[in-house]
């Protein structure tokens, strides 16, 4: 069992009003950057936002499962609606049970949301490992973005500060993750609801003198 069309890191953090999440829009087919407009953050029900990395077809299937879940919940018509903690729990069960049958859904998921003022941010991997935290990331993001987040995150970040930190993480991923593409979206979820930004690109910096003349200090080297 192996993935075919994959998407790379998701990075998310809690801020003053809710959750901010960032993901690029590239879909890779092996080493080819085949699709460049893949949306991989989607609202779930009224209170949650799901971001995914890994195999796109499995993510699409998960969205269908969640559709059914939310529909079933709505049909009770009892005034209650599934919050992010419940959706995260459901996803954890699905992922872990598939892993036990040796037929995993090849995704790492980030589930964030706000319900009744309480912010929630959790993650679950393809083998069912799940936890919540103030900031989470998948894939390369774990290695490159989380150290930045550990240093710069604090309680009650403003929207602007949150976006700046996420962009700092996404820029590093763009430099250092081969499967990253320079076209991303940032999504926010607050008590009011979900907003997903238009796709945009980040400026990158290449004008270091050491980049222009890499062998200046050691002529003849590579």
């Amino acid at each position, binding site marked *: 069992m192996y993935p075919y069309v994959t998407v790379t890191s998701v990075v998310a953090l809690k801020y003053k009003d809710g959750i901010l999440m960032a993901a690029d829009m590239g*879909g890779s087919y092996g080493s080819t950057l085949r699709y460049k407009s893949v949306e991989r953050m989607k609202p779930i029900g009224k209170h949650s936002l799901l971001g995914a990395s890994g*195999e796109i*077809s499995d993510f699409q*299937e998960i969205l269908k499962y969640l559709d059914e879940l939310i529909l079933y919940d709505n049909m009770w018509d009892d005034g209650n609606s599934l919050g992010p903690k419940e959706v995260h729990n459901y996803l954890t069960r699905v992922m872990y049970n598939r892993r036990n049958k040796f037929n995993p859904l090849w995704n790492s998921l980030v589930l964030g949301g706000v319900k009744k003022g309480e912010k929630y941010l959790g993650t679950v991997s393809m083998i069912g490992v799940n936890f919540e935290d103030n900031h989470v990331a998948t894939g390369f993001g774990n290695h490159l973005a989380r150290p930045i987040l550990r240093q710069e995150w604090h309680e009650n970040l403003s929207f602007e500060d949150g976006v700046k930190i996420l962009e700092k993480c996404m820029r590093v991923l763009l430099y250092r993750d081969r499967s990253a593409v320079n076209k991303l979206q940032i999504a926010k979820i607050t008590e009011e609801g979900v907003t997903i930004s238009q796709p945009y690109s980040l400026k990158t910096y290449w004008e270091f003198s050491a980049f222009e003349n890499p062998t200046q200090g050691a002529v003849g080297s590579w």
Partner: protein
Amino acid sequence: MDLEMNLNASHSMGTTIIGVTYNGGVVLGADSRTSTGMYVANRASDKITQLTDNVYVCRSGSAADSQIVSDYIRYFLHQHTIQLGQSATSKVAANLIRLLSYNNKNMLETGLIVGGWDKYEGGKIYAIPLGGTLIEQPFAIGGSGSSYLYGFFDQAWKEGMTKDEAEQFVVKAVSLAIARDGASGGVVRTVIINSEGVTRNFYPSDKLQLWHEELEPQNSLLDLLNSSSPEPMNI
């Protein structure tokens, strides 16, 4: 040296397939080579298959897998049309194919491009690569020959082409892929689908423009010898 052509290899359509939207509909294009190992089993196959009056699919990968998937979907869509009371939409066709491709991902080896026209959404192209991902795009390329076309499309594709511009673009692209991909070859077939209906076109290899290092085909060396004068064998 491999003298055996592995004539028992499964039929694979190495292939170049393309689907492109234009202002009014879609144009689908494909090459015509089906190979068993190194042998070309069919040099004039038709890889653009009809699913309904207004929805067609381009097939790549395993010939058997893509044919059986097409057959099932044609059957489902036929029933769906009867139940619905009107033509199926390209979105429905694409989603049905996704279901089969996704749920049988461990067994199937076929990449498909669905293109059609319906009165609700106009012309649409859906790509369904290996694994069963469904992705709607303004244009899609697939098959082994598509590797050689990513740069071409990045540079030359534009939104809102006319029907003739789009068809010429598709023919050019398939022809370029055939030039470099051993698994693609033969003729270029196109299918244009819009509100007026469906048009099939056929472009035999000798009618395509020549690319780098390709020469004008001749009947025989003798013609070349007879036409030029001073140093006949010094061509």
